[in-house]
């Protein structure tokens, strides 16, 4: 799994649905959670926690323009591409952190992804789990 350090900046809650705004470096991020009973105390502004997301939930965009509903757009540099027959794993540098994206090898080829490319790693807010450190 991918696990990066984030600082919680704001917590919105309505009817059991919680939207947590965070910052990773200077990059804004969001996670959507279901907390039907009570928001755990460690989820509060100012706390440094981990944002956790699966490699298969990280999409990549290159030369991206336009509007998109995704809340999490992390600017990254491609460090390494491990090519498989069908699936490839891309190692990405995101500021101080390393994250991985698992996408089809077909996409790697059609996007002509290569080392040192600038890409956006895209993750939906509801795919991000929070963990206390």
């Amino acid at each position, binding site marked *: 799994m991918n696990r990066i350090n984030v600082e919680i900046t704001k917590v919105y809650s309505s009817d059991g649905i919680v939207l947590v705004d965070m910052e990773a470096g200077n990059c804004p991020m969001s996670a959507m*959670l*279901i907390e039907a009973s009570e928001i755990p105390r460690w989820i509060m502004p100012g706390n440094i926690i981990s944002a956790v997301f699966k490699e298969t939930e990280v999409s990549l965009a290159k030369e991206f323009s336009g509007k998109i509903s995704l809340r999490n757009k992390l600017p990254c540099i491609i460090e390494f591409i491990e090519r498989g027959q069908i*699936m490839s794993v891309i190692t990405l540098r995101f500021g101080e952190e390393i994250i991985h994206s698992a996408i089809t090898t077909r996409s790697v080829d059609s996007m002509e992804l290569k080392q040192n490319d600038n890409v956006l790693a895209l993750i939906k807010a509801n795919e991000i789990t929070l963990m206390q450190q």
Partner: protein
Amino acid sequence: MEDDLIEIDVEKKLISASGILNLHIKTSLNFGELVVVFGDSGAGKTTLLRILAGLTEPDRGLIRVGNKVWFDSQASVNLRPQDRNIGFMFQDYALFPNMTVHQNIAFAQKDKDKNYANQLMDKFGLTEFANRKPTKLSGGQKQRVALARTLARKPDFLLLDEPLSALDMNMRTALQDEILKAHQFNKTTTLLVSHDLSEVFRLANKVLKIDQGIVTGKGSPDELFLNDKISGKVQITGTLVRIEKHDTFYLLTVITGTNQVIKVTAFQNDIENLHEGDQVLVFTKAFNPFIRKIKR
């Protein structure tokens, strides 16, 4: 005071080989719950069950079940075991060797209701063994007879002291189902002693954690045992049984506490500290899983 509440506040000084234990159990439970009493050996779990059954007298305290007082040291009330309407099954359940399965069950009945005895045998798959003596039964079958016999009195309370500890994994799982059945059959309140975590997750509505004679935790299995520091709402504990490399990722096989086989993909950094045989937590978010009816 509520009518559907069991109030327990009992003290007893226990002297054992490992020293003196001051048992002081103070808690309340709801009618109809399946409560697993969890703790290390020597924590006082069996004593608590014996106290509830009326087999061991506390030094002082109170046991109130709904509006009925079972024990009150100040008022010198101490209901006899037979007046508490409990079913008690010990680890070394003893069937009467000279009686058949049917006779073992019928003997325990207060009302000698033949229909009910047949119903119980049917429920626990014992009908075909009705006329066998216990020596002609397997371990699992004997355990089922013991459970059926415990239910024959139509108890309000089932007290089960590690009823499955002597059995292998497959038999345990099968009999856990029987215990659930037994619990639901008469809408009893069940207290079951166990120190097997998968059993806790399988059976318990509520866990009463006892340490050194004192209640140190009470809540759902999730609340007490799952890592509440993860926001993921779908959390499954299990044993990692296989790690296979597929192309650029790994496929892990996990057997869950309910004996289901699940597969999870993982990547290089995940498997660096994972080994086959490890106890693992599989988690995801409430948003992700699909759900579909398989039986009504």
